[in-house]
């Protein structure tokens, strides 16, 4: 069975045979970098198309269907269009911050890729504090938004940036707390460790009530953290036209757009890893036959399948719900999610200590 | 109250009322001078209680302007028209926007369209027309705009 892990190993051996360790590492890094860029571009194209198709189906219409077979090349055409557009800079803008903000957004979402396990034992950086790393990095997302909103010298942008400042920062806490329940049950912050702990069942199945609650809170929190509807107050188009990226046009706008989708992907990937076992196949205790079939499906398919399922849920939210108001948004966090999350962590600790989980 | 009863009731409270005949509703002719008191009476008197100013406009008769107020009582369901004749060169009348808040917007519209100045209006400035339109009154009969008007 071909796997990412083996491929990486083979490339590593092949390179090590032919050159010194330093050069091999450097070349590997270039390769990995190119792959990351490729993944970025691919994900952008796929996710935007998926969003448009999902929304179209929910809205009883067809969606893009003209460019390419079934409209598959629509996003590629859109990207080309955005590349050809002129990027405007407002006169009164803080030029440096204005140009740096989209780059910053891209770099942050790129860095978020590091601890993601795309397949079994296939990670760029299996750091022993992987979960904490993701929490830390995802809170950097707000900085690019604040930069963009402040630098634009536009009132809509400023309002959007201020809103997202309060919002992302708040939901950071809930995301952290819900992640903690799984950490408590596993006893490790390492992503690979967490995946291995789910070999006999995903946490969503064996973690009882606290994990279910944590899962719901996590989904809500990442929807808010990535500025997706119904929490898209930073870019609420009926209130602030486009919020923090009102002044961005052309490719810089596209970069923000892309970064948002990549963040959705990465955070859904984390959610899939923590709660749904990531690349771990679906196993049922002693049903050997079923388990073997499940093992036969490559682990990367499992990972991407689960991640896209979560992404679909988040898109489903977006195309169903109205937007919250800023004070309701913060109320939801501080009055409901945060107290619930705190109690939930204690509950998870209780279960972990008593060994009640399966 | 029907039309005649309303007329009688108002005449009882406002003896100097002058009526115009031949319209759908009872039509009270006012003078600019006692006009604010008359309107206050119509608005506040418990029997009349004309609390709904549903239409307010101005008519340019080429010799003079006529302000037309259409009033209704939501409680008693009677309707009344009040007309006030104004001087065409320097039209001025007391505002009624403190009695009916809707008059605030309507008076601004009449102000820019007919040039009637409403005294003591809280915020008398152009509402519909762009800045710099003062002095030309589009709904007056002698208004000419060679660019934007199409004569048929």
């Amino acid at each position: 069975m071909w796997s990412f892990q083996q491929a990486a190993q083979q490339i590593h051996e092949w390179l090590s045979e032919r050159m010194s360790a330093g050069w091999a590492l450097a070349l590997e890094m270039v390769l990995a970098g190119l792959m990351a860029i490729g993944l970025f571009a691919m994900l952008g194209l796929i996710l935007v198309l998926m969003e448009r198709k999902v929304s179209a189906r929910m809205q009883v219409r067809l969606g893009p269907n003209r460019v390419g077979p079934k409209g598959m090349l629509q996003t590629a055409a859109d990207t080309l269009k955005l590349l050809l557009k002129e990027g405007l800079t407002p006169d009164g803008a803080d030029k440096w911050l204005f140009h740096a903000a989209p780059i910053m957004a891209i770099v942050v979402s790129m860095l978020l890729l590091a601890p993601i396990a795309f397949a079994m034992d296939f990670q760029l950086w299996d750091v022993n504090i992987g979960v904490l790393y993701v929490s830390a990095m995802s809170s950097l997302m707000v900085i690019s938004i604040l930069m963009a909103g402040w630098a634009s010298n536009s009132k809509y942008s400023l309002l959007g940036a201020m809103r997202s400042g309060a919002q992302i920062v708040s939901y950071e806490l809930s995301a952290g707390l819900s992640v903690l329940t799984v950490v408590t049950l596993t006893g490790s912050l390492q992503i690979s460790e967490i995946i291995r702990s789910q070999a006999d069942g995903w946490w969503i199945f064996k973690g009882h009530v606290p994990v279910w609650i944590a899962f719901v809170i996590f989904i809500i929190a990442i929807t808010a953290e990535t500025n997706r509807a119904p929490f898209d107050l930073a870019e609420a188009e009926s209130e602030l036209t486009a919020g923090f990226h009102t002044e961005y046009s052309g490719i810089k706008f596209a970069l923000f757009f892309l970064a948002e989708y990549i963040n959705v992907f990465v955070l859904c990937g984390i959610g899939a890893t923590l709660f749904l076992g990531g690349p771990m196949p679906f196993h049922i205790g002693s049903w050997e036959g079923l388990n073997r079939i499940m093992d036969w499906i490559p682990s990367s398919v499992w990972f991407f399948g689960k991640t896209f399922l979560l992404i679909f849920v988040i898109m489903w939210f977006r195309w169903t719900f109205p937007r919250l108001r800023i004070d309701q948004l913060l109320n939801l966090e501080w009055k409901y999610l945060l107290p619930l999350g705190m109690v939930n962590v204690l509950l998870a600790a209780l279960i972990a200590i008593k060994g009640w989980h399966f | 109250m029907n039309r005649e009863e309303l007329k009688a009731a108002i005449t009882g409270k406002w003896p100097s009322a002058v009526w115009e005949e031949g319209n759908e509703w009872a039509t009270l002719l006012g003078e600019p001078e006692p006009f604010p008191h008359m309107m206050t009476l119509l608005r506040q008197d418990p029997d009349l209680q004309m609390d709904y100013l549903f239409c307010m406009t101005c008519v340019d008769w080429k010799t003079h302007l006529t302000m037309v107020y259409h009033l209704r009582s939501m409680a008693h369901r009677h309707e009344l028209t009040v007309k006030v004749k104004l001087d065409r060169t320097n039209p001025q009348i007391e505002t009624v926007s403190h009695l009916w808040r809707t008059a605030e917007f309507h008076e601004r519209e009449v102000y820019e369209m007919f040039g009637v100045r409403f005294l003591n209006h809280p915020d008398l400035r152009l509402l519909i027309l762009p800045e710099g339109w003062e002095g030309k009154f589009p709904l007056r009969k002698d208004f000419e705009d060679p660019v934007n008007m199409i004569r048929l």
Partner: protein
Amino acid sequence: MGVIRYLRDIWRGAVSLARGMRRTLYYFLRPKEIITQQYPDNRLTLNLPERFKGEVVMPHNENNEHRCTGCQACELACPNGSLKVIYKYEITAEGKKKKAIDKLVYHLELCTMCNLCIEACPSDAIKMAQTFEHSVFDRSQLIKILNKPGSKIMEGVE
């Protein structure tokens, strides 16, 4: 009590959200409900109702004859001045001078499709057509002459 109400609020809210999500999922799973019409592709099968008011036309018969007497009723009826009758005098067989149209100019760019001209026409010379693709690059192309070149009035129409 407070805690119970707090939890009940959460539950109710979640249920109401789930109901909405069920409805959108219902449509997501049913492509048959899609109502999009693929317009330029279905042009051939597009059926407009016979009363659809697309533009004013003047029907001509196979001998290039129309029914317009040049009476200007349509011109008078039009609220926007979209129709202009430019008429001339023809000498009939009996040697009498008779009013007839030279051109019936129709300004499609001014027309509001109110149907008043058709109602006003005493000889049913004009009618509404079902065409609707009127976009052109130059506004002057919307000024149309309704009578065909060389056409003349049908026999017996007064």
